[in-house]
């Protein structure tokens, strides 16, 4: 194809997106669109998969059967969300194996919030309430994104995600109705998860390199700073309602703007964790790669069994 023809196709493509038409896997698309989607969707899938690890830590120690079944169901949903997203990603011509390789080799990123440790039961509450809460704010606009398979996967993800946040908030409510130690535990979890949750919504707009292009392709509908403000405005009253204090001395309602002003975020910490120097980066990757390697013989055995069965059927037919 000549450069002019490609330019022509690109213009038609952008016009289709501007008209809110969906793009499906076999449609022509600019290489950059394909690459950006593989990057974002796989990053999203990896986050779901790695996100199971900090919570897996508490399955055997959940304080009641009710909490345990809820936590198990939440983690199972996360596995499911990872799978929806991986298969949506594969429609763009990348294999599952390549995607796993990218995660295991560190070439692909996942949400850096999962590199923080879960040291008390209250962390299950804080993660559900704050981390899933921030994820929902990020994800709801993606149900309308331009790439069909991604949008369809996100509709399913969002439908299932709201129980995750509620079960987390409920854990916090119960702790805040408990003993002084339990209250302290809930407050301590909020103290540790608040700032990383704000960072989860991404770098400030001025430093977000992909925002402009992503807005055009409807991979993003609101900027990181707008999403962060929305998260803060809806979460602060939820904290106050159950007697928790947001760990930000500069947090103050701004009557004029109709939203909260908040303190400076420590972006150095964010970039340190992104670059691999968070408290649990190594532990998470070791757990993930270890599980993959230890599972290899099971995957091979399943293939061998399937082949044996298939051969038996052929022999019977003969």
């Amino acid at each position, binding site marked *: 194809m000549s450069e002019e023809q490609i330019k022509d196709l690109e213009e038609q493509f952008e016009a289709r997106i501007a008209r809110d038409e969906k793009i499906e896997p076999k449609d022509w698309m600019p290489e950059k669109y394909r690459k950006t989607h593989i990057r974002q969707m796989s990053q999203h899938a990896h986050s779901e998969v790695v996100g199971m690890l900090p919570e897996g830590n508490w399955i055997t120690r959940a304080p009641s059967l009710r909490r345990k079944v809820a936590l198990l169901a939440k983690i199972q949903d996360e596995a499911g969300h990872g799978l929806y997203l991986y298969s949506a990603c594969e429609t763009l011509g990348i294999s599952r194996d390549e995607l796993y390789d990218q995660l295991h080799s560190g070439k692909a990123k996942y949400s850096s919030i999962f590199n923080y440790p879960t040291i008390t039961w209250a962390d299950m509450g804080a993660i559900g309430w704050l981390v899933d809460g921030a994820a929902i704010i990020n994800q709801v606009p993606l149900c309308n994104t331009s790439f069909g398979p991604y949008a369809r996967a996100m509709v399913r993800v969002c439908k299932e995600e709201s129980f995750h946040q509620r079960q987390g908030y409920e854990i916090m409510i119960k702790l805040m109705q408990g003993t002084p130690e339990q209250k302290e535990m809930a407050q301590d979890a909020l103290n540790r998860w608040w700032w990383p949750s704000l960072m989860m919504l991404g770098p400030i707009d001025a430093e977000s390199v992909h925002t402009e292009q992503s807005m055009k392709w409807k991979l993003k509908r609101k900027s990181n700073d707008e999403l962060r403000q929305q998260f803060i405005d809806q979460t602060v009253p939820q904290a106050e309602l159950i007697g928790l204090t947001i760990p930000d001395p500069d947090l103050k309602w701004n009557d004029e703007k109709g939203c909260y002003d908040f303190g400076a975020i420590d972006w150095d910490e964010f970039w340190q964790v992104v670059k691999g120097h968070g408290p649990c980066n190594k532990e998470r990757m070791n757990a993930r790669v270890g599980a993959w390697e230890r599972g290899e013989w099971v995957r091979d055995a*399943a293939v061998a069994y399937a082949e044996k069965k298939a051969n038996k059927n052929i022999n019977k037919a003969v």
Partner: protein
Amino acid sequence: MKKNWPLWEVFVRSKNGLEHRHFGSLHAADADMALENARDVYTRRNEGVSIWVVESKDITASNPEHNGELFEPAQDKVYRHPTFYDLPDEVKYM
């Protein structure tokens, strides 16, 4: 030698009376495993009463580049629609 699990497409009937609809895809070693995995991945909340799985490589799909010759001929055949035919207002039940 490393062999990857093939890709399967999953179709779910959400309730009797409705058709099976494409829900997504997954990897599995064989058809039985594909069905079991489909149950766990796509019907955790009573989304279905019946599942079909078919290996993705067995599906033949049309190419969007040929959409013109495939689908455009139908566009100028307005006489296939009831509104193409003029009837007097007095005619009922037609």
